[in-house]
């Protein structure tokens, strides 16, 4: 629950920080919306992820030499769509651009505002809350495109939608690629 509270606080602070520049109506509306929907999110999505449906892999994936995290508890190839953290990713994989699964390529800037997924790690059978941050202002080649939609929802809930370009608070809003960063454990499946 500590991680859960941290996540909620982080997301609400992000939203509030951004919207405070706009009108009172916007601030109130966004915070109320966030308060109503965000706390429910990780629990509901972790439950959905427990069934482990197959991930849809884009044929564009697989054009890079294999990579590994080197950590047996973090298995898979970060340049491929079926790497476990990418369960709700929609975009190009930064591991194919000079970045890694959790860092942006040189010359880009990581957006602090993002969309969230919950993915199950096959090595330790835990569900993790994953932050899909976009890297912005670099050269988009369209390489290693991936479209996985586990837990994706229509843009009416934008924080659950992977069609939005999440380049906010960055110097350039031009999209380059996406990373998948572990924020914490959602629910221990053991």
């Amino acid at each position: 629950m500590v991680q859960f509270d941290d996540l909620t606080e982080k997301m609400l602070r992000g939203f509030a920080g951004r919207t405070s520049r706009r009108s009172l109506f916007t601030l109130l509306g966004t915070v109320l919306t966030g308060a109503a929907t965000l706390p429910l999110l990780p629990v509901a999505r972790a439950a959905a992820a427990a069934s482990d449906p197959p991930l849809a892999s884009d044929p564009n994936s697989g054009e890079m030499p294999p990579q590994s995290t080197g950590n047996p508890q973090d298995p898979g190839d970060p340049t491929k769509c079926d790497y476990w953290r990418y369960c709700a990713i929609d975009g190009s994989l930064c591991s194919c651009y000079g970045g890694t699964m959790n860092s942006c390529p040189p010359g880009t800037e990581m957006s602090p505002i993002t969309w969230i997924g919950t993915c199950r790690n096959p090595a330790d059978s835990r569900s993790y809350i994953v932050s899909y941050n976009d890297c912005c202002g670099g050269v988009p080649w369209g390489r290693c495109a991936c479209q996985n939609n586990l837990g994706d929802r229509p843009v009416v809930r934008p924080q659950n939608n992977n069609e939005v370009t999440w380049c906010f608070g960055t110097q350039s809003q031009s999209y380059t690629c996406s990373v998948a960063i572990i924020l914490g454990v959602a629910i221990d499946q053991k």
Partner: protein
Amino acid sequence: MHAPVFSSKSFTYTQRQEGVKPQQGRKVMYKILVSAILVAAAACAAMGASAADFPNPLPAETIPKVETLPAKYPTTWSFLNYAGDRIELRNVGSDSREIKGELQAHDSATLLVSDQRPELYVIDTVWARGVRGARTDFITVYDKQTLNAVGEIVLPGGKRALITAMEGLTTFTDDQRMELVFNFTPASSVTVVDLVNRRVLGDIEIPGCSLVYPTGARGFSTLCASGTLLSIKLDAAGAVAGRAESKAFNPLDTDPLFTASTTVGGIRYFPSLHGRIQPIDMRSDDVKILPDWPLVTPAEAAAAWRPSGWQLVASDESKLLYVLMQADAHEGSHKDPATEVWIYNAASKTRVKRLRLVRPGSSIALTHGTEPLLLVQAGERLDAYDVRDGVLVRSMDLPGFRSRMQIDTLR
């Protein structure tokens, strides 16, 4: 540096010597020489015959010469928006993969086609230095016959939503005199644009709500994260003249509505992820959320038949509703290509036909001619079916296409 090059050439020579003995090599060379002479002689004879057949040379041609398009496009022409990166006008009624023209598009570009004025409107975003520098959001006004840019409206604030091109990011209202642009920063707002005088009228904040759907004579509705629909009436200056919010009807936790919709008899229909259809009457300012109804029987629901795809609903405008459907649906499969199109009579709320697609499709649209075609974007193909008998009449290339398509058919 010389040694490796010399070595390389020696290696090539050695390889040839190993493959062909010297005597055989001379025979091969002789055969090649004879063949070349014969071919050259035949070519000269052919040229002579052609000149005799055509005594007059081809006339000199005009420079410069640029194609133009008809004032009214045929109904077999359609705009294909490649995820906002490219917009193409194509004749889908031809087997020749005819491309009639292209419109510039960089990032999440969206298109509106006017039938009130001879104009097209593309909203786009660019940065001054390619992927960096000052951001500009702008509407380009194109002449429909020349595809020349004849006007531009700059949208202030760098706030338009950069989302994969889809329905709801923009719409006409006020009988096409106004265009509405959905903004997301991630605060939500709508920019109102006067297309006649080509200027921005102002912004309307819509906190917690997303996308725009035309409503009443001059206004829009937007889907809210609280599960409601907020409808806003505008005055002639584009300012808010009235607001009304529905009760919550969109269950976002359990069975949310897709944001793609289609209209039948003026009523807008939204499918849900689990297989309901939600009609909403937005014809007047008094918006009515009508009773929803199931697209699937209990047995079909048990087999996990659900709507799926991108532009996943279409209509013939008068009666029939077309929905992309997939079996064995599961969490995360709602944007996967669908295997069938199910066709409903919207008035009687009954299914009238199931059409099994030749290959799974993601986006559908109907052309508006006397012999309508059902267009299906299926991976790198654009398939055209005869809606009367469901026969695939044509399949066109979409080379290298791996993203989401928005299809705009024309009246």
